[in-house]
């Protein structure tokens, strides 16, 4: 058994790491859904934009400035998207807002295409994160080890924010009932903006970790991780933050176990990697059929 782990350690490690990155993105989906009942299709592209901004900014600025700047700018993008594309549709049918979200997604992708000329941009090597290390004979990068810890720290901070601050309480209230929240004196637009900003911040952190591993950014780099994080959020029960985190880790780990199929299951074949994405989406279909509300999906306790 120990031998088995030893041999396949690198798959497990990258599974946990990718899982953490998906988790950070998935929180953005799940929080926005929790409040607006909107699947923010542009979220994966916000993540991509954070990656691209890092490419451009780090070429002329030191990391100590470019990294905080990327975080701030990504938060600003999240804020602006909500104000421009979603807020005017607050009382429109949900479908209109969703279409607006799809529009924003393509807008961001095409803006990125325009700026990059469609070429893959090489992601900068962030000094500490990209260093290679060897753990128990498995070669990996520091980022692989840092990701799960950083993810958990951020999730704990986020839950503390939600549980113990006024803004957090307002978020819970708004996610339940817009109108009654307003009667309490809560300015719902501020709370909604705050939600988008938090989600974008976490997506920006995820982009730092994710692209350090993948080394290049293209205009469509956000779609796949975005979709997988979305699947993770659905699996965990969309609207639930712990659900999204657990779902993301499970998907990240499963995906990498499949990638390592040949050696892990002892079944030879070179096509395993190709199926790792297919697995995620097949999994989504199974979840939707078997348990549409996900692991921690909303259970209603309303009483009239």
């Amino acid at each position, binding site marked *: 058994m120990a031998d088995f782990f030893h041999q396949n350690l690198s798959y497990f490690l990258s599974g946990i790491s990718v899982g953490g990155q998906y988790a950070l993105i998935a929180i953005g989906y799940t929080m926005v859904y929790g409040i607006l009942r909107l699947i923010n299709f542009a979220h994966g592209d916000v993540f991509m934009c954070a990656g691209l901004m890092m490419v451009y900014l780090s070429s002329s600025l030191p990391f100590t400035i470019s990294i905080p700047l990327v975080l701030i700018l990504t938060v600003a993008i999240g804020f602006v998207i909500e104000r421009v594309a979603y807020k005017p549709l607050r009382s429109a049918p949900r479908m209109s807002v969703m279409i607006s979200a799809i529009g924003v997604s393509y807008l961001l992708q095409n803006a990125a295409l325009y700026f990059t000329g469609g070429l893959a941009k090489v992601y900068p090597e962030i000094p500490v994160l990209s260093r290679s290390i060897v753990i128990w004979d498995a070669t990996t990068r520091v980022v692989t080890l840092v990701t799960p810890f950083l993810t958990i720290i951020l999730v704990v901070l986020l839950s503390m924010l939600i549980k113990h601050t006024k803004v957090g309480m307002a978020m819970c209230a708004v996610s339940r009932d817009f109108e009654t929240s307003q009667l309490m004196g809560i300015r719902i637009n501020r709370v909604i903006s705050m939600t988008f900003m938090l989600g974008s911040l976490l997506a920006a952190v995820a982009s730092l970790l994710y692209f350090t591993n993948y080394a290049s950014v293209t205009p469509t780099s956000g779609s796949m991780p975005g979709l997988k994080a979305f699947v993770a959020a659905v699996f965990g029960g969309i609207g639930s933050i712990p659900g999204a985190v657990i779902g993301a880790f499970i998907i990240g780990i499963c995906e990498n176990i499949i990638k390592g199929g040949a050696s892990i299951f002892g079944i030879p074949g070179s096509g395993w990697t190709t199926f790792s994405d297919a697995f995620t989406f097949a999994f989504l279909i199974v979840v939707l059929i078997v348990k549409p509300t996900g692991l921690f999906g909303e259970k209603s306790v309303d*009483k*009239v």
Partner: protein
Amino acid sequence: MFEIKGLSVNYGGIEAVRDISLSVPEGAIVTLIGANGAGKSTTLRTIAGLVKPRAGKIEFMGEDITGKDPAYIVGKGITLVPEGRRIFPDLTVLENLKIGAYLRQDSIEEDIEWVYSLFPRLRERSWQYGGTLSGGEQQMLAVGRALMSKPKLMMMDEPSLGLAPLVVKDIFSIIEKINKEGVTILLIEQNANMALKIADIGYVMETGQITLSGKGSDLISDEGVRKAYLGG
């Protein structure tokens, strides 16, 4: 203290409230009675800032508050206990009370104590989720939550809705008690009998207009009111 002049509100494509005027003196209990769909709820929702009026003026303590947003109006000291209580089911009783004081910066401990002394049942259930309370307890919580904003004027939308007669009696005696402690009350009710009994002033609303007004005790003996709302 509080005054509505010529208020008209369109709601859901129809003119739900047509040119109504009413006034609420400080320290009074004022009730607005009328059948379902008469425009009572729309009136309260407009005062609270949830709905924007088409015409007219709403004045509170000499200030024009027409069309202001709900947070501003709550900050001024007007609160609404909404129809159907609308407590937050996945917050605890205590959290529900705290969120009622959302805009306040000062210490709220004393007022939590005050609400608990008005409703001892809530103290017992302090750590329970709002959604697990009975209908009557939820109504108490909704009133307590509204009181946490330290209102000068508390508006109540059908507090007796769906409650057992005994519980309704409790709620009404609490309303009187709160009023004696200095909170002005504007109450709308289908249970006209109960409402008129405790009200200083009553208004009767029909299809968006105020058709009758007077002292609570006068309305209760009015022939037309008896026929229409008090079951003969």
